């Protein structure tokens, strides 16, 4: 049965059950008139309903608790290929870890059993095998040896050497480590990294949990090369939980454990071996001070610290000494916010660690060979852009309002500029369209305070698909969603009303007006309007916020002032600055629980400006969803600017259209 056919059957089924038994027959006759297949499906479904009794009414677990206990422990004593599982060691990000006996070679191994959900994702599995093979080729005493990546009766596992020892995390927690031991561990790790990097393998998740020390002092790095590939959800898991996670899984992936991430990792950029050097610097800092150099109440706070702050000097945690100063120099060099400020290779770092250790033993002074600390100022240049951005945003809002009022009183056709540009866009060749989008994108980036970057073709094409969708929608009202001109017209009609709500709450009108206009276009009249996934799932919450019933949400005249009042209240609560506005703007356009949740959390913190920057730093990721959803049902700043519908609103000088003329 197709989803459409099923929907019809479901409708008839529900309709019949909603009626008294003696009315069903006539209802069915009428509802299925001339459609025997539908009638038969509906009849059999109703009959199943009547016969189902208590079928699946009790949760599965009530029946299966005993079996479940066994199911959960079923691996102990089990044979997996040549391995007999002896004991459960723990569970990690990559599934369960067991101690097992390799019966062929009569040795003990650590066996990681991959989650079945992972194993059912063939693409991921193949990539994983490839990567694990590359990693298993690494032959270095400080890298955990991978014996085998195998499969037995559909269960995938990795057999590695078994280390009887403690993780660096355990060591740090137990007692303060002598500096000599710390240097020894760091050197062994750096040495392993140098070998791996030479083979083109980056670990990406160096942290105290992934470094083990055997009782004989030998250090091993765990999970080389496989971490990154494993730490992604399997597809069916995503599908299964899509209803509640939809808006979150769309964001860019930021891998790794927050506190050990390099700035480039935190920003979701491409990483190279210098990310491992950063992370080793963090581990070194933590081994000495027994504190995380970068931390915060939330993951975002931690990432902000990574991007913007220099850690407190070691001597604020442990007593000052010459040795400490030397280690501090190595840490500073490893923790350069910009990659080129760090050691460029693990070998360089290793050499300096060795020098420090020799110095510790009383070898010749090495002070001169270690570079003095450079000022770390990546964040400050970012901060310098703040005023530019604020000015641009306020200006944009101001111009938008002027434009809005001017236009509402003028007799010019409401949407002539838009139509002209849209039409022009449609007439361009594909190459011209891409060039146009690239130019617009760079303007917006510059205006937003980003360094204008030239987008690669993939990125341009992806933006193009949004623009195409948007332009097509401005041309024809095909999907039941309002056209841009309809939205603008309605916005204008409601502008005075919205302005009143804002004034009454002493919120600058210019800031909230655009938001309220957008909101007035949001009419959640049905739970399943086409193209309206996303925001519509928040209807109950939004209706509650606005103090409206579900049906009132469909009424623009009720909805608009309620939205305006609600937004105005939020603005008043948040403060009337441009950051707040941007957050609200993002949250309303994005329709994301993530942004909303952040907003809620921010309200509880005194210093939300840092968090704002975190959001802003990830603008590229936000924008993808932002644009996509915008193209679906609201004319956003972005889509509008890209299409060139309303460039004046951005204070942007449009390029002469002749530039694109044939």
């Amino acid at each position, binding site marked *: 049965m197709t989803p459409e056919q*099923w929907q019809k059957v*479901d409708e008839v*089924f*529900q309709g019949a059950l909603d009626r008294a038994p003696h009315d069903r027959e006539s209802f069915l006759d009428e509802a299925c008139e001339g459609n025997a297949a539908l009638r038969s499906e509906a009849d*059999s*479904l109703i009959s199943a309903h009547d016969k*189902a009794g208590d*079928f*699946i*009414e009790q*949760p*599965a*677990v009530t*029946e*299966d*608790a*005993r*079996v*479940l*206990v066994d199911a*959960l*422990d*079923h691996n*102990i*004593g089990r*044979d997996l290929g040549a391995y*007999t599982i002896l004991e459960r*060691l*723990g*569970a*990690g*990000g990559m599934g*369960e*870890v067991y101690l097992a006996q390799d019966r062929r070679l009569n040795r003990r191994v650590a066996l990681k059993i991959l989650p*079945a*959900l992972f194993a059912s994702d063939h693409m991921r599995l193949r990539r994983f095998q490839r990567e694990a093979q590359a990693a298993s080729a690494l032959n270095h005493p400080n890298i955990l040896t991978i014996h085998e990546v195998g499969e037995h009766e559909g269960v995938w596992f990795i057999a590695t050497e*078994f280390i009887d020892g*403690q993780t660096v995390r355990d060591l740090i927690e137990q007692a303060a480590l002598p500096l000599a031991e710390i240097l020894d561990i760091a050197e062994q790790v750096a040495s392993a990294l140098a070998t791996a990097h030479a083979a083109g393998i980056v670990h990406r998740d160096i942290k105290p949990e992934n470094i083990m020390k055997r009782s004989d002092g030998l250090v091993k790095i765990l999970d080389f090369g496989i971490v990154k590939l494993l*730490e*992604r*959800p399997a597809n069916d*898991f995503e599908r*299964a*939980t899509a*209803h*509640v*996670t939809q808006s*979150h899984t*769309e*964001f860019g*992936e930021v891998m790794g454990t927050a506190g050990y991430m390099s700035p480039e990792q935190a920003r979701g950029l491409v990483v190279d071996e210098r990310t491992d050097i950063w992370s080793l610097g963090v581990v070194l800092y933590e081994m000495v001070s027994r504190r995380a150099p970068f931390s915060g109440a*939330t*993951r975002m706070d931690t990432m902000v610290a990574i991007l913007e702050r220099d850690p407190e000097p070691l001597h604020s945690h442990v007593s000052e000494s010459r040795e400490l100063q030397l280690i501090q120099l190595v840490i500073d060099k490893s923790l350069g916010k910009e990659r080129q400020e760090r050691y460029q290779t693990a070998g360089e770092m290793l050499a300096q660690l060795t020098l420090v250790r020799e110095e510790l033993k009383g070898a010749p002074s090495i002070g001169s060979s270690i570079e003095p600390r450079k000022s770390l100022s990546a964040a400050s240049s970012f901060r310098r852009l703040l005023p530019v951005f604020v000015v641009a945003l306020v200006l944009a809002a101001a111009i938008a309002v002027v434009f809005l009022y001017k236009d509402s009183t003028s007799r010019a056709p409401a949407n002539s500029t838009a139509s002209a540009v849209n039409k022009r866009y449609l007439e361009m060749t594909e190459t011209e369209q891409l060039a146009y989008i690239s130019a617009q994108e760079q303007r917006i980036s510059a205006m937003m305070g980003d360094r204008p970057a030239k987008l690669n073709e993939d990125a341009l094409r992806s933006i193009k698909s949004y623009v195409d969708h948007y332009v097509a929608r401005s041309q024809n009202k095909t999907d039941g969603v309002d056209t841009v001109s309809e939205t603008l017209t309605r916005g204008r009609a409601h502008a005075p009303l919205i302005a009143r709500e804002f004034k009454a709450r002493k919120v600058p009108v210019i800031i909230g007006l655009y938001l309220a206009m957008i909101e007035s276009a949001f009419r959640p009249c049905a*739970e399943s309007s086409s193209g309206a996934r996303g925001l519509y*799932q928040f209807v*109950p919450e939004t209706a509650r916020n606005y103090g409206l019933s579900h049906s009132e949400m469909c009424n623009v005249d009720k909805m608009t002032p309620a939205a305006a009042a609600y937004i105005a209240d939020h603005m008043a609560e948040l403060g009337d600055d441009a950051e707040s506005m941007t957050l609200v703007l993002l949250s309303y356009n994005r329709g994301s*629980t*993530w942004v909303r*949740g952040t907003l809620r959390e921010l309200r509880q913190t005194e210093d939300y400006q840092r968090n704002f920057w975190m959001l802003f730093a990830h603008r590229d*990721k936000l924008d993808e969803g932002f644009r996509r959803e915008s193209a679906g049902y609201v004319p956003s700043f972005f889509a509008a600017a890209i299409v060139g519908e309303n460039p004046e609103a951005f204070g942007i000088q449009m390029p002469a259209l002749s530039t694109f003329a044939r």
Partner: protein
Amino acid sequence: MTTQAKLNENNLTGLLTEWREGDKSALDKLTPIVYDELRRIAHRYVRRERDGHTLATTALVNEAYLRLAGFQKFTWENRSHFFAVSAQVMRHILIDYARRSQFAKRGGGLQRVSLEGAAIDAVLMSPTRAAELIALDEALDELAKMDPRKSDVVQLRYFGGLTLEETAEVLQVSLMTVRRDWRAARAWLYKSVNSE
């Protein structure tokens, strides 16, 4: 070797928050913790039963949640996500075990070897029950193709042990919608499972 996922306040809340904030890797880390917790509680259930107490109908998942949630005030998102993950994990465990039970009956190995080496028999799911669960699982996949939300409702209710109200909350739909979804899904699944 201690790669043990330590179940502590920061860990779990952090992972849920990370997941909510868009960190996909948090889900992978979350799953074993849910497994651990389910295992612990299932053990306790069986012990309680042996002591002469009847098994309460409270779902394991709910109990797991309550224990975990006791750590700190959970946001709505955390709670829903936890339910969604738990229901999925639960379904997976049971179906996997049903398959193994069938395989064992057909002469495959589900023999357990104790640490001393003596073979002991594993508790198997009854063949009827195993067949029922597997048929249900397959039917649920079919349903998901036509109507994913109804399939989610069943997963949350039947495998996750959620009430109608909780299901409505997790899926962000009205209680009425869940009721209607449930009756249609139940009828369709009943028909599908019994026609095979």
